[in-house]
C-alpha cells in the first residue's frame, strides 16, 4: 500500500477563521506568484469568536492592499462608522466618560488641552471632557461625515473606526481570496510534525499530509499548529467570554457603550441592521483565560489572530491586533519566509509589544475599578505603571513605540477613570483661568454648531450605499 503524495503549496493557512481568510487574501495579493492554500482544522473552536470586529484607522492601509473599500465593508459586512465609546460604571455607577479618536480641545502655549481642562475643573467651569471632542459630540448626536481634508478645518479634528460583522467580513475575504486563486483544501488538518524548531509537514484527514514552505496558524484558541507551549496567561484580566446577543433595531450607529458592574461588563454597539451585545463576566477561579503566545513566529510558522493573542473585547483588540500582525508580516515579508531569522525576531518583538499595549489598555480599567472597590491593584506591567505614574504626577502622557490606542484615547480613559494629575504643566499654569475657560467654552460652542450641521449616520450611509450600488451594479461601467 503506498501513501498518497503530500499536498503541496507554498503557504498553508490552517483554520476557517476571519484571521485565516484575511491572511490568505493578504498573501494572495502580496505574493500572487505563490500557491496559497487554506485547510480547516479539526479541533477549531467557533471560527468567529467576536460577532463584531472593529477596524481602527490603521486598517486603511491594509484594506487598500487587500483591494477592499469602506463601501465594501458598509455594504457587504453591515458596517457602521463608530465615533466614540461611552464607558459607564467602571469606577462607580455614576461614572461616565467617552473614548474617541481625534483631538480633545486644542493645545495652547505649548501645553496640551488636558492641562487646561484641569484648571477649568478646579475653577468649577468644566463641562464633561467629551464636550471638547468633535468625535464624541458627533457620536452622541448620532451624526457622521468623513473628516475634512483641510487640516485647518474644525471638521478635520477627528477620526473614526468601522464596526463590521465578523462573519460577513470572513465570507467576503474568503470570496475574494478564492477569486484570487487561493485553494481551499477540503481535508482537515489533524496534526503537526515539528522537528528542529520547524514544521516538517501537517497530517491531514484520510492519511494525507501537506508539506509547504510556510504555515499560518489561524486556528483560534485551539492553536492547532503552534500548540500551547509559550502561551502566557494574563492574570490581570480575570474574565470569561459569554455568549452575545443580537437584536434587530437601529438606534445610534455612531456610539458604542460599555457598561461595567463589579462582576461583569457588557459592550453594545450597532451594525447597520442590528444591535449586538457581548458580555464578559469576571471569574475568581485564579485562572488566566486570556493571554498570548510568547513566540508567535516560530521557525516556518506564524500564529495569527486568536491563536497568537486572545483578549476580552474591551477596545476591540482582536481585529486591531490582526491588522497589526498582517501589517507586520507584510512589512517583514521575506523572499523566503522559512529562513527569515532576522525578520522573525523583529516580528516577534513588535507583535509582543502590540499584545502588551492592548493588555495594558485593558488592565488600566481593571486597576481603576479595583481602586474604586478597595481591592488590590492587579499586577501592572512596568510600561503601564510608568504611564499611570507620569500622568497622575504631572499630566504627562508616556507613549511607547507601536501603541494601538491614540494619545487622545489614553488621556480620555485616564481622566475618565479617575487618574487625575496632581499638578499640570507649568506652561498651562501661567495662563489666566478666566481666559482659559472663555477660550475653551467658545471652542466647545463651535463644536456644537458644527455637529448641528452634519447629517445623521443613517442618512449618510444610505447616500453612500446608493453611490456604491451605482458603481457596482449591473449598469456600472
Amino acid at each position: 500500500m503506498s501513501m498518497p503524495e503530500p499536498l503541496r503549496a507554498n503557504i498553508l493557512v490552517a483554520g476557517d477563521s476571519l484571521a485565516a481568510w484575511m491572511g490568505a487574501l493578504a498573501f494572495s495579493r502580496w505574493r500572487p506568484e505563490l500557491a496559497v492554500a487554506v485547510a480547516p482544522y479539526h479541533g477549531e473552536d467557533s471560527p468567529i469568536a467576536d460577532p463584531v470586529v472593529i477596524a481602527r484607522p490603521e486598517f486603511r492601509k491594509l484594506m487598500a492592499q487587500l483591494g477592499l473599500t469602506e463601501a465594501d465593508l458598509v455594504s457587504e459586512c453591515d458596517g457602521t462608522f463608530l465615533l466614540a465609546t461611552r464607558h459607564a460604571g467602571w469606577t462607580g455607577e455614576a461614572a461616565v466618560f467617552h473614548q474617541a479618536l481625534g483631538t480633545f480641545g486644542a493645545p495652547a502655549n505649548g501645553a496640551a488641552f488636558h492641562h487646561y481642562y484641569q484648571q477649568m475643573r478646579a475653577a468649577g467651569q468644566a463641562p464633561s471632557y467629551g464636550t471638547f471632542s468633535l468625535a464624541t459630540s458627533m457620536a452622541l448626536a448620532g451624526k457622521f461625515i468623513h473628516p475634512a481634508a483641510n487640516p485647518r478645518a474644525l471638521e478635520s479634528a477627528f477620526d473614526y473606526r468601522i464596526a463590521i460583522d465578523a462573519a460577513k467580513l470572513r465570507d467576503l475575504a474568503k470570496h475574494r481570496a478564492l477569486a484570487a486563486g487561493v485553494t481551499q483544501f477540503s481535508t482537515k488538518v489533524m496534526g503537526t510534525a515539528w522537528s528542529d524548531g520547524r514544521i516538517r509537514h501537517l497530517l491531514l484527514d484520510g492519511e494525507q499530509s501537506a508539506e509547504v514552505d510556510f504555515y499560518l496558524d489561524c486556528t483560534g484558541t485551539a492553536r492547532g499548529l503552534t500548540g500551547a507551549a509559550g502561551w502566557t496567561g494574563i492574570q490581570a484580566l480575570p474574565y470569561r467570554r459569554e455568549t452575545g446577543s443580537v437584536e434587530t433595531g437601529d438606534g445610534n450607529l455612531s456610539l458604542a457603550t460599555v457598561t461595567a458592574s463589579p462582576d461583569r461588563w457588557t459592550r453594545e454597539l450597532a451594525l447597520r441592521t442590528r444591535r449586538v451585545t457581548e458580555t464578559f463576566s469576571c471569574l475568581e477561579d485564579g485562572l488566566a483565560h486570556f493571554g498570548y503566545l510568547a513566540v508567535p513566529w516560530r521557525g516556518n510558522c506564524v500564529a495569527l489572530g486568536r491563536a497568537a493573542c486572545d483578549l476580552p473585547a474591551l477596545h476591540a483588540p482582536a481585529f486591531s491586533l490582526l491588522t497589526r500582525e498582517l501589517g507586520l508580516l507584510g512589512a517583514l515579508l521575506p523572499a523566503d519566509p522559512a529562513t527569515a531569522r532576522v525578520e522573525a525576531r523583529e516580528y516577534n518583538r513588535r507583535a509582543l509589544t502590540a499584545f502588551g499595549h492592548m493588555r495594558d489598555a485593558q488592565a488600566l480599567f481593571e486597576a481603576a475599578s479595583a481602586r474604586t472597590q478597595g481591592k488590590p491593584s492587579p499586577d501592572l506591567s512596568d510600561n503601564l505603571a510608568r504611564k499611570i505614574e507620569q500622568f497622575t504626577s504631572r499630566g504627562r502622557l508616556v507613549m511607547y513605540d507601536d501603541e494601538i490606542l491614540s494619545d487622545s484615547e489614553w488621556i480620555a480613559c485616564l481622566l475618565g477613570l479617575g487618574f487625575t494629575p496632581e499638578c499640570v504643566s507649568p506652561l498651562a499654569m501661567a495662563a489666566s483661568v478666566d481666559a482659559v475657560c472663555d477660550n475653551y467654552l467658545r471652542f466647545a460652542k463651535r463644536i456644537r454648531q458644527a455637529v448641528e450641521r452634519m447629517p445623521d449616520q443613517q442618512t449618510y450611509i444610505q447616500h453612500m450605499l446608493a453611490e456604491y450600488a451605482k458603481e457596482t451594479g449591473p449598469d456600472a461601467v
Partner: protein
Amino acid sequence: MLSDQTLGTILIVGGGTAGWMTAAALSRLAQNGHTKIRLVESDAIATVGIGEATIPPIVGFNQILGIEENDFLAKTQATIKLGIVFDGWLQPGEAYIHPFGEYGLDINAVKFYQFWLKYRESQKLPYIDQFCLPAVAAWSNKFLKPGNDPRSVLSTLSYAYHFDATLYAAYLRRLAEARGVVRSEGKVVDVALRSEDGFIESVRLESGEVIEADLFVDCTGFRGLLIEGALKTGFEDWSHWLPSNSAVVAPSERVAALPPYTRATARDAGWQWRIPLQHRTSHGHVYCNSFVDDQTAQDTLMAGLDASATDEPRYLRFTTGRRKKFWNRNCVAIGLSGGFMEPLESTSIHLIQAGISKLIALMPDMSFNPTERDEYNRLTGIQFEQIRDFLILHYTANQREGAFWDYVRNMGLPASLEEKIALFRSKGRIFRFQDELFGEANWLSVLLGQGIIPRTWDPLVDTMDLAAVLGDMRQIYQAIQKTAEGMPSHQDYITRYCPAPPV
C-alpha cells in the same frame, strides 16, 4: 493656578547657547508671577561655540519662543540649511546628501524607496536624492519656504539654520531678559550642598555673592561644574565607538554663493565641517589624536578652507559620551555638561532643545518627586543612544583606506545598530523606535549613502504594474525638478528677506 509647591527660583549656571536657550524657554514659566528665572555667567569664560548648524526642530523651538524668523536670521548672520553633504565618507571622491525631507511619495501604501531599490538599475533611475525636493534644491543652491498646502510638493521640504552661535545666544539673552530673566555676571567658585540630602543649596560667585535656588540647570559646558564638579554624577565613555577626541576650528571669509547645506568631508583620521554663514564660513576638523597629531590636523584643516582664514585656529578636546544621570538631585545638565557627541549630524543644539522640552514637560515642584527625574533620565538616555547609533553608522560602513577608517569599520557595534542594519540589508526595512529623532528618510539617506544596499525589496513592489509605477515615479521626479527650478537661489532668498548687517 499655582500650587504652594511651585518652584520659587530656577538658577541657570552658564550662558552660551545652552544657557540662553534654557533661559528663553523657561522665561515662559515666569509668567506665573511666582517662579523667578536667574542666569549667572562670566564674560571671562569663553563659550565653545560648536553647534552652529542645526536640524529642523529648531524652527519650531524658535516659533514657540515667538521669534520672528527673518529678524532672527538677520541678527544671527544665519543661512538656511536643507541637509548635510557627506563628502568622501564611503570612499574619496563620492558624496551624498542627507536632506531634510522625504523621498518621493508612497505608491499604493508602499514606500517610494522600495520601488527605487527595485528599478534603479534596470530602469537606469537617477540617484534617489533626485526624488527629494530639499536634496535637489540643496544641490542647486536654491531655497523657498515650504508651503502650507499638503498637496504641494513644496510642503515636503523641511529646513533648519546655520547661525553664529554667539549671536544666537545674545539674541536669546535680549529676549529672555525682556521676559523677566535676571542675569548675574560672575564666576562660580563654590557650590554648597545641603547636608541632609546632598541637593545643591547655592552657588557662590567670585564676588562673594551667594545665590540660592530650588532647581539648578548646569549649562557650564564640558566642565559640568554642578553635575560633575559638585554632584560627582559620573560619565559613560563612548569613545570606543566614536573615537574622535579633538577638534581644531577656524573661520574663513564667506563664500560668494551661499550653499544651503553643511558639508562634512572625510579626512584621514576624522572629518572636516564647513558651515556657511552670511559674514563668514565656519570650519572645523574633528579627529582622533591617536591617529593624527595636532599639527597635521591643523594643516589638513587650513588646506581645506575654501577662502582665506580670518582668525587663528583654536583647539578643543572632548570625550564622547554621556553623563550617567542628566538630572541628579535638583540639578539638570543641559548642553555639553550632559554629554558630548561630535557635531556630525548637527545634534548639539537639538540636544539642548530636547533637554529643555523634557524639563518643561517634567518640571518638578518642591517635593522633587523622583518620578519626573527618572523619566527625564530614561528619555534623555534613549535619545543619546539613538543619536550615537546614527553617528556610528556613518563610520562603520566606510570603504576608505587608513588606520582610523580600518578601526571604525571593524569595531564592534551596539546591538541596537546591528539589528537596524541587518533589517535594512535584508529588504530595505527601517523601523523607528521610541519617538526617535531621526526617522526613516534620515536613516535611508545615510544607509544608502554609505553603500548599504538591501539584498532585495518589499515583495509588494513585485505585485504592481511596472508601467503604472514608472509613470508615477516620472511624475514625482518631474514635479520635484520643476519645483526646485522655480525656487530662488539661496543667496537671493537671504538678500530679499533677511540680509544681515555688515560686520
